[in-house]
């Protein structure tokens, strides 16, 4: 077999680092080019998390998922662009410039796995790894018109994933089709004892489009105000298609949605404020100036190395955890989180999956969203799955204003297989 060469014209700036050549190895992914999001550690290959504070960092070890890819002979051909440390919904927060949406280069590809989505959507690679903390796989999948799965929390090892929000994030597969996403998922779920938050439950499944009798719940809150009516309409058509294929659709309610976004942002910023404390330039990354004393040098390194959004979130998280405020913010966010979980438990007693739009709108224009809070609000439909830990997929579901729209399907804990099946049914229905 010939070695895989890769000399892309990276028109959409999907990549931060590319490797020109990879030798073929045997395995289920033999010779297939795979793009890896740049917050996943790759031995010997620069890994930046889209941040200047990690410029030049070369990990001495592979993330578990990277070892798994290599074991199956995949050709890892590059590290993709992302919002800095995963903080963002558009990939505009990258320290290395934004990625463009292949569907419309004047628009954002979504985030934070915008680079991986663009790499797949533009045909540069068939498979990519992304990460999803509050929607960062599903959002770019929806905006770029591809498929992306956030697995059940604990099904894919986070060893080697540079942490943003440990209790929320998962690495997941991104590809054009459900079948490819499913194949990649089989490879990613091999157990890793190095991650104490995982469960040994590998995914081995051929997508089954037979969904007669499957009950699909559609929460009112997923079609409420804040969701663009044109997007809602396209997604509703998609759900109707599933109904025609034999599924039973019922409306339902998720009252915890009122708190979900606040709970998400309190939790992820708190965890992030702690996770990002290690970037002081002493052991890796551009060094701190050793002339001033420690705290001064440390503060300056962080001001220089982190973009504004990262610094904003670190400060928010620090505040939420600080003495006197922990009870008001962090503790209550965990309680709100439990309510989200309870809502899912209740719903899954009567339905098999839950469906709705992935995002409230189509892709924004580059530079359109400048106010942080208004940016955060666009995560409202994706964060519940992260808060609860349930699996969730976005599949392409038509267009609005000429731009891709995503249909989101969420399933029960450790029933990623069912989510894939419903997605497969939809995909087949669309092509039929």
């Amino acid at each position, binding site marked *: 077999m010939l070695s895989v060469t890769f000399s892309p014209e990276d028109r959409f700036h999907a990549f931060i680092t590319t490797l020109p050549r990879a030798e073929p190895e045997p395995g289920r992914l033999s010779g297939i080019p795979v793009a890896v999001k740049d917050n996943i550690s790759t031995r010997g290959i620069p890994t930046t998390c889209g941040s200047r504070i990690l410029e030049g960092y070369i990990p001495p070890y592979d993330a578990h998922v990277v070892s798994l890819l290599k074991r199956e002979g995949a050709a890892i051909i590059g590290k993709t662009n992302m919002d800095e440390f995963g903080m963002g919904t558009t990939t505009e927060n990258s320290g290395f410039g934004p990625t463009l949406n292949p569907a419309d280069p004047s628009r954002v590809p979504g985030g934070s796995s915008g680079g991986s989505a663009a790499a797949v959507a533009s045909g540069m690679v068939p498979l990519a790894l992304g990460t999803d903390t509050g929607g960062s796989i599903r959002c770019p999948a929806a905006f770029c018109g591809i498929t992306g799965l956030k697995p059940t929390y604990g099904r894919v090892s986070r060893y080697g994933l540079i942490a943003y929000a440990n209790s929320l994030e998962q690495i997941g597969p991104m590809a054009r089709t459900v079948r490819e996403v499913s194949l990649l998922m089989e490879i990613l779920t091999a157990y890793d004892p190095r991650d104490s938050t995982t469960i040994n439950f590998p995914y081995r499944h051929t997508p089954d489009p037979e969904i007669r009798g499957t009950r699909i719940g559609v929460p009112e809150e997923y079609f409420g105000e804040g969701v663009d009516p044109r997007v809602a309409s396209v997604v509703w058509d998609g759900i109707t298609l599933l109904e025609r294929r034999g599924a039973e659709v019922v409306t339902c309610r998720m009252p915890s949605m009122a708190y979900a976004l606040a709970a998400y942002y309190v939790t992820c910023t708190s965890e992030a404020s702690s996770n990002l404390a290690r970037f002081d330039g002493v052991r890796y990354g551009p060094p701190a100036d050793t002339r001033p004393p420690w705290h001064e040098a440390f503060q300056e390194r962080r001001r220089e190395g982190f973009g504004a959004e990262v610094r904003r979130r670190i400060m928010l998280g620090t505040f939420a955890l600080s003495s006197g405020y922990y009870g008001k913010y962090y503790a209550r966010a965990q309680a709100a989180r439990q309510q989200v979980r309870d809502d899912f438990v209740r719903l899954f007693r009567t339905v098999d999956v839950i469906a709705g739009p992935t995002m409230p709108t189509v892709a924004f224009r580059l530079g359109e969203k400048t106010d942080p*809070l208004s940016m955060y609000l666009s995560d409202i439909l994706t964060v519940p799955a992260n808060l609860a830990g349930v699996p969730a997929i976005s599949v392409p579901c038509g267009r609005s204003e000429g731009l891709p729209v995503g249909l989101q399907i969420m399933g029960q804990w450790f029933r990623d297989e069912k989510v894939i099946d419903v997605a497969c049914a939809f995909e087949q229905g669309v092509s039929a």
Partner: protein
Amino acid sequence: MVSEHDVEHIAELADIGISREELAEFTGQFNGILDYFDILDQVEAAGAGEQDLANIFREDEVEPSLTQEEVLANARETEDGFFRAPRVM
């Protein structure tokens, strides 16, 4: 409501530098976001659930460490096998 002074204090606590120009903008954004977070006041604090998984251990067996070279490889300033850091006082 947080003031610019409060935001400065938070930046101190977080050991994060922000410039004077950023301070006013950050303070405004902070207040907007914290106002949004107020919705959590309606949630009863004692509600966090129990975790299913517990007692995940590894055995007390030695595994290979990195070599000193590998450990220091990404640092720009080292001396005699140590990392160099700004003085703490």
